[in-house]
């Protein structure tokens, strides 16, 4: 291997011909695929992000129309515009779509567009993963929303409480569509979380230490971590839910030892952090636009970080405030009430930081700022009623009334929707190169502001007068006809405002391009040029402050002239710089994924598993699962951990960094670690189920259902430990050059993993546990299947790594594969210890 660093001669960036040649090479490398079908194989964040955003926006409009139909039905007492059944479908789909198909995906979509720009990166670390997330979202979203046209939409409310939704005689296909369709979308959310966390931590430009990171990136980091801990409990709940619906395992059936409350716990452990998952990214937009329109640095940078991190933590201690009326001991309610009050502190701090910044700055009253300030006003009203309903005795009065509907809409419109419109007006020039109309925008704002208050303020009163949520009509004698009519008028007014914004966007192609950085902002994303190139950024800058465009001399020109890092694509590869987590020191040039069918095919295959299962077509679903596995393996084999043609590459200014990293410094290792955090969280949801059932039963395990014994679970644990040991030993000997020994150890690992799969299932199988008879056998089987299946996945990973080694795609120097699967094996061992100790040893302890 030759030392390329010695041959490297820095290009002369003063020479326009050199720059033009660099630009040609970059343009060629980042050229989007064209053609009627091929264009959809694109993976570049600027396209996938825009598709994602438009799709989420379309789902928002759809869900809004559902709401208008509901408001039309409720305009008059005893109205019969829609039937009760249709009304149930309308409100369920309205809530589910707004939450799962608009609010969360919109944050992911906007982040996919903005984050690389904010971080001066050419793209996110795993562009194909973003594309996979998008296609999953599209397929799952169309599947769920389309159901209403077949009168088959879910109708159990957006939180789908059993037993109404688990009893197949009370609810139809809709419940399965909700559960499986949205589970599929949760997978894409977790994929986005992985992408965004690794993006923020590893793809920052050189010099952008943690204290210089744009606040948007801080919020995204925090929210993506929240997704990792919030979505998996819901996935665990979905697993139990579908096991009950499809296989009659009685997790939520009280007559066979189950408990519907377990679903409420798992749902709200997801559901409450979810509120902050959709709120924080919108507030993050304020943190970007307020400094711009105050023309000064944001005040209290560490305080905002405190607010984001503090809110994220506290939001996980609030879930029971949705369950105040379920009869839990008051002491438990009090804990959650206390945390619900505490979360007002960080939320207040960020609002005060924004107000202080505006106060200290020279305010430019732009359209985006108008939306931002208006939304803070609306959000604050929702926050105040939030403090009210966080007090348990008040909540018992307001629970399940329109007061709660008013509260949550004030919070979501003020905390998510209007901030997104602020972001729309602010960032539209970044994406299209054109400004939206100030006149239409301001008029639309006042229509929206008036509409929101007219629609939702009366709901506080109709709720206090006694109007319950989710009724399809009400009698005239209740005296709430006037309030409801006002709400309906407000809703249509609000829709008019949204329509005005749509018209404004539709007129955009007719308008002239604006100047670069039209708001005179100071942060990196505004380097984008109105006639944008696909390469993201011309050269990756060295960052010395929080507002480099304002504060660093000749910054824009230096970026444009390629005077910073990585100004070229000499080898014809898509590349971005990977830096260290705390201080953003360049440590690698990563080669990025190029346009490919594989993400789309993988999404279709995985989607088919969920959709076919909905219709009980199990054999076809199994075929879909095999196809998914094949697609994933193809993706990994052809697109990851590629051995570079040279060990290192010069990126300018005398810096030479490796082209390949493995272990904890590498982005792939982090992706595995983060994915497994989510996996472990889902598993802990199932374990929570086991111990939850233990607390509600005087004798658990029940005397009538002995099993699965100690022997088989302990054997399975020992085999998992052997598999783990073999893999770690393989990693270590491999790194020291013992390739043959490492291969043998991996083979041993495969056998041990497969044996652990068999032994894990043998316990409940041989002891004859019948999962339909009682919740105890059902939850034991679930833990055993979960853990055994993870053993099976370990065998596949070990086999893959062995094949990579034999194929020469993994060597002692380039060993990312074996290092990544060791992370999986660590988590597998943890899972096995907890699962097998729970099902094997705990019964002895409990008796």
């Amino acid at each position, binding site marked *: 291997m030759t030392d390329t660093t010695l041959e490297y001669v820095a290009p002369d960036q003063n020479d326009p011909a050199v720059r033009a040649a660099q630009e040609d090479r970059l343009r060629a490398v980042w050229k989007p695929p064209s053609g009627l079908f091929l264009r959809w194989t694109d993976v570049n964040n600027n396209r996938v992000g825009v598709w994602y955003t438009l799709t989420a926006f379309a789902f928002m409009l759809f869900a809004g129309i559902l709401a208008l139909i509901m408001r039309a039905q409720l305009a008059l007492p005893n109205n019969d515009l829609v039937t009760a059944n249709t009304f149930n479908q309308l409100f369920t789909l309205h809530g589910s779509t707004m939450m799962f198909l608009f609010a969360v995906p919109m944050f992911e979509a906007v982040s996919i567009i903005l984050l690389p720009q904010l971080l001066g990166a050419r793209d996110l670390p795993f562009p194909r993963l973003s594309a996979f997330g998008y296609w999953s979202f599209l397929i799952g979203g169309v599947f769920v929303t389309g159901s209403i046209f077949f009168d088959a939409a879910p109708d159990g409310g957006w939180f789908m409480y059993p037993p109404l939704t688990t009893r197949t005689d009370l609810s139809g296909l809709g419940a399965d569509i909700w559960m499986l369709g949205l589970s599929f979308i949760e997978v894409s959310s977790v994929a986005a979380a992985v992408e965004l966390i690794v993006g923020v931590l590893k793809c920052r430009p050189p010099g952008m230490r943690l204290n210089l990171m744009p606040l948007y990136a801080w919020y995204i980091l925090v929210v993506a971590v929240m997704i990792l801990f919030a979505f998996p409990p819901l996935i665990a709940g979905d697993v139990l839910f579908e096991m009950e619906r499809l296989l009659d395992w009685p997790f939520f059936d009280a007559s066979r030892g189950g408990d519907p409350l377990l679903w409420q716990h798992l749902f709200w452990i997801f559901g409450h952090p979810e509120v902050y998952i959709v709120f924080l990214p919108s507030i993050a937009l304020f943190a970007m636009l307020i400094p711009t329109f105050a023309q000064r640095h944001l005040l209290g940078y560490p305080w905002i970080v405190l607010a984001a991190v503090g809110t994220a933590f506290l939001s996980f201690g609030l879930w029971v405030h949705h369950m105040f009326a379920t009869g839990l001991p008051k002491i438990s309610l009090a804990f959650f009430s206390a*945390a619900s009050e505490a979360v007002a502190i960080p939320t207040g701090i960020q609002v005060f930081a924004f107000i202080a910044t505006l106060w200290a700055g020279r305010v430019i009253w732009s359209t985006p700022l108008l939306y931002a300030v208006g939304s803070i006003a609306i959000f604050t009203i929702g926050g105040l009623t939030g403090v009210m309903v966080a007090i348990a005795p008040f909540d018992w009065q307001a629970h399940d009334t329109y007061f709660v509907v008013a509260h949550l809409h004030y919070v979501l419109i003020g905390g998510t929707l209007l901030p997104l419109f602020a972001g729309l007006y602010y960032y539209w020039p970044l994406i299209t190169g054109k400004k939206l109309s100030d006149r239409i925008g301001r008029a639309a704002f006042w229509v929206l502001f008036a509409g929101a208050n007219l629609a939702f303020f009366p709901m506080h009163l109709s709720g206090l007068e006694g109007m319950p949520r989710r009724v399809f009509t009400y009698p005239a004698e209740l005296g709430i006809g006037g309030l409801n009519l006002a709400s309906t008028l407000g809703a249509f007014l609000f829709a008019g405002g949204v329509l005005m914004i749509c018209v404004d966007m539709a007129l955009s192609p007719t308008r002239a391009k604006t100047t670069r950085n039209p708001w005179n902002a100071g942060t990196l994303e505004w380097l984008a040029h109105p006639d944008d190139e696909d390469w993201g950024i011309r050269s990756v800058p060295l960052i010395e402050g929080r507002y480099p465009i304002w504060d660093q001399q000749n910054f824009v020109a230096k970026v444009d002239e390629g005077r910073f890092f990585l100004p070229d694509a000499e080898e014809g590869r898509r590349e971005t710089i990977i830096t260290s987590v705390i201080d953003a020191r360049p440590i690698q040039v990563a080669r990025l994924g190029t346009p490919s069918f594989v993400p789309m095919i993988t999404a279709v295959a995985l989607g088919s598993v969920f959709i076919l299962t909905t219709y009980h077509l199990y054999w076809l679903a199994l075929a879909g699962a095999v196809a998914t596995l094949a697609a994933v393996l193809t993706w990994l084999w052809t697109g990851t951990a590629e051995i570079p043609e040279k060990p290192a590459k010069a990126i300018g200014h005398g810096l030479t960094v490796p082209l390949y990293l493995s272990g904890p410094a590498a982005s792939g290792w982090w992706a595995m670690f983060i994915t497994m955090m989510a996996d472990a969280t889902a598993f802990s949801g199932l374990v929570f189920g086991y111990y939850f059932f233990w607390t509600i039963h005087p004798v658990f395990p029940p005397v009538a259902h002995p099993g699965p014994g100690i022997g088989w679970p302990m054997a399975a644990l020992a085999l998992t430990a052997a598999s783990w040991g073999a893999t770690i030993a393989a990693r270590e000997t491999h790194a020291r050059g013992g390739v043959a020994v490492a291969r043998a150890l991996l083979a041993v690992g495969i056998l041990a993993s497969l044996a652990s799969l068999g032994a894990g299932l043998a316990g409940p199988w041989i002891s004859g546990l019948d999962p339909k008879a009682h919740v105890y056998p059902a939850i034991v089987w679930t833990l055993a299947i979960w853990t055994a299946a993870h053993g099976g996945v370990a065998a596949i990973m070990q086999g893959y790594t062995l094949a990579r080694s034999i194929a020469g795609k993994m060597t002692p120097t380039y060993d990312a594969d074996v290092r990544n699967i060791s992370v999986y094996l660590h988590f597998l061992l943890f899972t096995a210890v907890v699962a097998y100790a729970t099902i094997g040893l705990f019964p002895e302890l409990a008796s």
Partner: protein
Amino acid sequence: MKRIAGRLRRRTVTLWTMVVPPTVWAAHFLFSYLWAALMCAKVGAFAAFPTLYVAATAVAIVVIVASGVIAWVQAREPGDAPPHDAGTTKDRQRFLATATVLLAALSTIAVVFTAAPVAFLTDCR
């Protein structure tokens, strides 16, 4: 005293150390929930002075305050004048330490909030 402060300042603050105070809050909160759920489901009552609970709360507050004090010392790294927002190792350290102090303050309040009901409620109704 100065020597201790100097040694503390040389310790690196990371994202992991920054989230120690809220993680302790989370552990204490989870403990509170499990403690109440288990006492009420399996025993049916809890003592007027629940020693275990009080001890766990005390430990949580001690750990949070300790990490707050350490971070306070680290944040007050002497030297150049504010605002500490430059791209230097010192300012990065000051920022992470300041954020830790603030999180410790929030976490202390949150732990006190969480524990307060135990002082007022006496049974499992």
